[in-house]
């Protein structure tokens, strides 16, 4: 069995039909991680005891001939920003290097209830702040398609694990593009669900009004199965919406003819790499061939998305990260005579440069005298950005754009210029600000063989439509991706 090719269905079926056992699958994945992950660095922590316990449970079910849950025996990886009971949870930060979480995030508990086996925790930019995974407090992740390049970020480890076949599927979080951008760079599928569709309970907060948990998979169907398992109202997260969860897989395989798909002109202007543009345009043409109607639209405030994001996200981060004070959990650094000296030493030793930069920026934009000029202003522009989408969705069912302006860049290429790094998220941040769902699927390769991603955005709570469009495009483009 080539385990690196397994999808959720093929992994589950192999356990169901007794071709293998869940325990043997876990053995095989840990063996593959041992040989492959040294060069990539996708994992920070393996939770073997927990994985084998879950595998034994699934094997017992299979032996009894009981019905198997939808993710039975499927080995998955979890971005290390989700808490996992009795397993180290670091958020990619030295400040949480030895933190053992006392409870499971809702999404982690739901995946295990659905039969998934959690292999380990994946590397990420510290507190999910970054677009290249180079801000990890531990080590960078390398792109499995080209080890000299970044996997994207912040969920770089989760994307790289799926691309390297060291997990069948994985969970990430998306605050400004942190699922879709690494999915594009690594050539896998990444889905950011609607804000409120998936619980954030147990997700270590970066920017609470922007953080979206979501899945990575090899195929559109795999992310649909993962979404089905994690979606829904959670009493422990008051921002989860009490709306029905449709059968997402039921929309996989539905045709797109008659669907109206918008193409925003602002996403195809200067700064877009010619090869990325050509691949995305080819993908759009395939959807036209499949019967969809492509309509030019305008999202006029797009150029203001990145500055809006960096005010709101840093403001929320400066508030959220105040909890890391060396008192209740995490690092406490050095001998301090006073409480404030203890805070200062702890944060100085525990946080990396980008996290410090964002806490300072966020504190500044919230400070007396600057609050109206920066924070309130950005919140007003956020309304305009959300209205752009509302307006567009009165005439179209979905929107197509490139996921990123370029293919994966080299390690070190943007580390000296934070602003250049921020612009890597130029096509993804707006969906986070508006809270709409978006998916990135592979749509081609550059001349150098690097993956190119196409983004499909939808209306609030209409993941079904973007999955439908993504699945049709995935099949039409399959021959370009081998």
């Amino acid at each position: 069995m080539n385990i690196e090719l397994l999808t959720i269905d093929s992994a589950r079926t192999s356990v169901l039909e007794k071709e293998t056992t869940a325990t043997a699958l876990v053995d095989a994945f840990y063996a593959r991680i041992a040989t492959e992950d040294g060069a990539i660095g996708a994992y920070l922590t393996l939770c073997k005891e927990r994985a084998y316990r879950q595998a034994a449970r699934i094997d017992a079910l299979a032996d009894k001939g009981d019905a198997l849950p939808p993710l039975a025996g499927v080995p998955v990886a979890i971005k290390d920003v989700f808490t996992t009971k009795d397993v180290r949870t670091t958020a990619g930060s030295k400040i949480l290097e030895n933190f053992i979480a006392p409870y499971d995030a809702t999404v982690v508990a739901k995946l295990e209830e659905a039969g998934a086996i959690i292999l380990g925790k994946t590397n990420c930019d510290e507190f999910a702040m970054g677009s290249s995974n180079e801000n990890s407090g531990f080590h960078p992740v390398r792109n499995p398609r080209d080890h000299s390049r970044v996997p994207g970020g912040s969920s770089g480890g989760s994307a790289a694990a799926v691309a390297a076949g060291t997990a069948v599927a994985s969970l990430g979080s998306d605050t400004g593009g942190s699922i879709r951008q690494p999915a594009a760079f690594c050539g896998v599928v990444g889905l950011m669900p609607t804000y409120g569709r998936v619980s954030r309970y147990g997700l270590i907060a970066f920017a609470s009004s922007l953080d979206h948990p979501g899945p990575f998979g090899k195929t559109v169907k795999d992310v649909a199965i993962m979404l089905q398992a994690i979606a829904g109202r959670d009493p422990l997260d008051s921002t989860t919406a009490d709306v029905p969860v449709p059968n997402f897989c039921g929309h996989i395989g539905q045709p797109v003819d008659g669907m109206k798909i918008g193409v925003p002109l602002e996403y195809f202007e200067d700064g877009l790499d010619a090869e990325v543009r050509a691949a995305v345009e080819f993908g759009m043409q395939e959807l036209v061939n499949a019967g969809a109607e492509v309509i030019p639209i305008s999202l006029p405030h797009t150029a203001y998305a990145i500055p809006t994001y960096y005010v709101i996200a840093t403001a929320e981060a400066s508030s959220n990260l105040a909890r890391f004070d060396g008192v209740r959990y995490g690092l406490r650094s050095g001998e301090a005579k006073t409480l404030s000296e203890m805070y200062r030493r702890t944060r100085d030793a525990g946080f990396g440069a980008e996290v410090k930069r964002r806490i300072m920026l966020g504190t500044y934009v919230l400070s007396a005298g600057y609050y109206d000029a920066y924070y309130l202003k950005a919140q007003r522009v956020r309304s305009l950005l959300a209205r752009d989408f509302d307006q567009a969705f009165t005439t179209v069912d979905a929107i197509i754009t490139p996921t990123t302006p370029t293919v994966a860049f080299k390690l070190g290429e943007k580390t000296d210029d934070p602003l250049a790094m921020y612009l890597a998220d130029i096509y993804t941040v707006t969906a986070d600000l508006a809270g709409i769902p978006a998916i990135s699927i592979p749509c081609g390769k550059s001349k150098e063989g690097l993956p190119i991603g196409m983004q499909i955005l939808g209306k609030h709570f209409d993941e079904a439509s973007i999955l439908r469009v993504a699945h049709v495009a995935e099949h039409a483009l399959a021959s370009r991706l081998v």
Partner: protein
Amino acid sequence: MLKDLNSILGYIDRLNQLDTSDVQPMAQVASRYDERSDKHKDDLNLFAYVMRADEPRPSLPHVEALRNAPATDGAFFKVPKVIER
């Protein structure tokens, strides 16, 4: 660090190109659902969805809550002196 922060703030200044005098601030995604459905605009209703019954629930056991602390006396978190003479 200072140079980076100034360059980022300079970039953020482009928000002032927009006239937002009659635009409501958006603090939460959920507030948008209400704006579009023309529900009541008062604050309580915008955030009505977050209300739940005020019922006690089990919380983290004391010993678990202390387990990750850098310093405790077994009952409380220990910190350096807060009030100085």
